[in-house]
């Protein structure tokens, strides 16, 4: 799941994640992300920006996800280096990031749990559901 308030960056992030072989879902703020996580069981990773409007920023979201949904992989991005503020096992990518960086982090995170390579199963059900 991609959480990014800037529409153009979000669009591009979706393509990067899909080009890396994952299906994705995207939202514009942390509150929407939490709502989706409460409903669905198939989100395997959250890729979030830090600076976002709403009741929580990306860092709070990352900590909330680590606390409540511990198996979900976390990738956090920002224009400022916040690598030391991340929850355990979170990965940080400095903005502006490239498709190669996103692909590299995703493949590193999912290499320990190889199959199936799905960030998020598509609503149509074409992809295998992941617990």
């Amino acid at each position, binding site marked *: 799941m991609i959480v990014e308030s800037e529409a153009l960056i979000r669009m591009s992030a979706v393509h990067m994640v899909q080009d890396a072989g994952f299906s994705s879902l995207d939202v514009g703020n942390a509150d929407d992300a939490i709502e989706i996580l409460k409903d669905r069981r198939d989100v395997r990773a959250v890729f979030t920006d830090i600076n976002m409007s709403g009741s929580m920023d990306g860092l709070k979201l990352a900590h909330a996800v680590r606390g409540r949904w511990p198996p979900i992989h976390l990738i956090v991005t920002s*224009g400022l280096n916040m690598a030391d503020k991340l929850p355990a096992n979170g990965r940080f990518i400095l903005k*502006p990031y490239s498709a190669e960086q996103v692909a590299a982090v995703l493949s590193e995170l999912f290499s320990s749990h190889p199959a199936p390579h799905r960030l998020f199963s598509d609503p149509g059900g074409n992809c295998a559901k992941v617990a």
Partner: protein
Amino acid sequence: MAPRPTSHSDVSLNLALAVIASSTARLLLLDGDLTLIAASKSFCRAFQIDPVSVANCPLGKLGAGEWNVPQLNTLLTAAASGFAEVESYEIDLNRKGRESRRLVLNAQKLEYGNDDNVRLLLAVSDVTDARIAEKLKDDLVKEKAVLLQELQHRVANSLQIIASVLMQSARKVQSDETRTHLFDAHQRVMSVAAMQQQLAASSASDVALRPYFTALCKSIGASMIRDHNQLSLDVSADDSSSAADVSVSLGLIVTELVINALKHAFPGDRKGKIKVDYHSHGPNWALSVTDDGIGMPADAANVKPGLGTGIVEALTKQLQAVIKVTDAKPGTAVSVAHTQIAAVQMGEARAV
């Protein structure tokens, strides 16, 4: 000021009284029981004490009793007995109807050779305004840091938006040539971004070139080299740093020369190496990008130069440097060098 009747013939006491009277510092002279012997005019003025009331007044009864601070009493008594020192001791002076003042106290026991006539000189400085100014300065420094962070964040976000738009366009276009141009444009944006990241990571306004070029080449390599066993891209540089505007120009030159080498020097699946080198000596520096590829075509002079060549030429001129292309046998070496003497001559040539 009204000194105590001069039962003391002591010369040094008279001297002390004279010094206190004329001092601009806020001074009190006390005896061993913390009874005032004298106060400087400036003390009386600063703390609204009637100079006439000073002599023989116990410290605790001075003014409206605001100097009756238990820990101050204990401390001064101990100082008078000689078993404590009062150095830069801070207290808050609270008076009715006035704002609290932060005071720094220094006390000195005056030695007369006998313990009967203990004298204690107390210097009082009011640091309230200085502390407020200091806090204001600290707040401004913090505010500046926050603004700078905000700015860096915005720059990074804007660069990400530009890079995203270019990538979206590259995905959509049909023509391979246009796609290549869009990818190159994307690479140039990322090159500027790498400089920005280096700048944000350091507290200085200069950019360390080795980590910058290394990050830059890693980014170019990640997006343009398919097989890293076939092609390698290495950076060697000394510990030079340069100003942000110079660095961004150097980075863009590196980007163009490396992209150029990757595109043209290794046709097919030719193996090879590209080396980026930067060294400086005083004001002089030299940047080179060397490959061991197929070398320049024989009719290079007739090939219409691309945007990359234009960028390198414009930036080289801006840096008052000279480009030199040599046959590296095998491959090509492009060097961009700045020497102070040549730059002065270039300046003169322009001025003519």
